[in-house]
């Protein structure tokens, strides 16, 4: 069986892939990066909090010009997952304004990014339209 590794450490793979945030135990602020302290209240203690896998598109852009090596066009978006904002690409959707709309309902989706020399497969994530 192929070993898998997530694109980022806040993507949890397995039977039910989901994102996990560092949640401040004092004020509930959520962050996806490694933390030194809470930017909201200064708290030092965090717990891992699972983020809802469904949400709605609060903002998007269709990127036609990007840094070299990045395939375009793609849809970059901010998805509101029941109060937690998540940055992601929208996947499994035609990248044009007829198919991508503000407020559209989406869900987390993972996809294989390729296998490295050691045989480990990296797995990325995006959000796809709800059927």
């Amino acid at each position, binding site marked *: 069986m192929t070993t898998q*590794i*997530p*694109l*980022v*450490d*806040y993507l949890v793979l397995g039977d039910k892939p989901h994102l996990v945030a560092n949640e401040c135990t004092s004020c509930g*602020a*959520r*962050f*996806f*990066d*490694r933390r030194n302290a809470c*930017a*909201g209240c200064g708290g030092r203690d965090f717990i891992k909090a699972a983020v809802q896998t469904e949400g709605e*598109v*609060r*903002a*998007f*852009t*269709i*990127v*036609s*010009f*990007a*840094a*070299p*090596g*990045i*395939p375009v066009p*793609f849809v*970059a*978006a*901010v998805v509101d997952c029941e*109060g*937690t*904002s*998540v*940055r*992601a*690409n929208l996947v499994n959707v035609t990248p044009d*304004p007829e198919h991508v709309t*503000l*407020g559209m309902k989406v869900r987390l989706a993972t996809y294989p*990014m390729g296998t*490295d*020399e*050691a045989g*480990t497969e*990296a797995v*990325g*994530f995006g959000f796809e339209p709800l059927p």
Partner: protein
Amino acid sequence: MSSDDLWILGIHMTKFGKHPDKDIVDLASEAALGALEDGGVTMRQMGILAAGNLLGGNHVGQMVQKQIGQTGIPVYNVANACATGATALRVACMAVKAGETDMALAVGVEKLSGAGLLAGGSRKSESPNWTPEGRYGAVAPIDGRIGTETMPGVFAQVGMEYGHRYGGTSFELFARIAEKNHAHSTLNPMAAYQKRFTLEEIMNDVMISYPNTRPMCSANCDGAAAAVVVSGAKLATLPLEQRRRAVKIAASVLTTDPWEEGCQVIPNVNTLTRNAATQAYEAAGIGPGDLDLVELHDCFATAELVHYDNLMLCETGGAVDFFESGASWRDGGTPVNVSGGLESKGHPIAATGIANIWEIATHLRGEAGDRQIEGARVGLAHVIGLGSACGVHILERSAA
């Protein structure tokens, strides 16, 4: 004039555009010497120098001194993304306000012609083995895989988010904002571009990051701007001609983005602008309705829309209606970006936050030529640097 007041005594901007034969020191020196000459003062009278440049080095202040006057004064080299120029001016204001000097010089300069797309691709190479790196433990570059780091893409989402919250936005609406600013630029000989575009030309131009096409993005160019700040007490001792052309700094405010949900996922350029504007109106003792003109940070057409609201030029949620009413055109109730804005005047990053002060000051002095807003008495200049920093300055015409 109260002795506690701060004033712009002299101010200058170079023409924005392509300056292949000038380096950042040439441009910054031209702006600084121009500001000194405009104020009728010399480098010897400056107590501090605040200087900003993002892409060409980190000690531009000393490089400028070595061309125009090594007087031994303190130099503060500052960096605050697109708010760098405003930050340099703010440092000059604070030095005068603190009583460290009665005159200070601020300069911002950038060479950006042909720079292309800004930001994005922050991590260059793919590793042969998936190895977690950085604060997200990422095994591969995330720009393009987890959203976009590019400025046109980030600010496109800023405008789209406003549309999601309040409705009424469309590709065409954003394009019409760019149409306005390009139309304004035709009256500004200092602008990098003075080409009027039809709405169709704007919408059919190269798409950069929907809904921003190329003419809806700020124009990379070269330029510099500089200002001499003087205390009210010192100004009162100067001849009438200098007092008459001096412009009062009724408010000088710098803010950063306070933590809010989502602000580390996509930059929140709204709250820090609203906070800066609130503080500035209070300091100046005026309201948005008193403004005769506004230069705001239209780094992209999508950004201009949200700042109508953030600067409280309209009711909360009313930015679309405000624009649709024609208010922000130069013949409207609150002319916005009569210089052509960053989309056509250009955006040499560290110069922008002083150049927009120059634009306002020039109107308040009645020296803006064909694009003069008649009878302008009060104006506001705004910049945003992602990361984020927001500068807001309110300027008033001299009563002298």
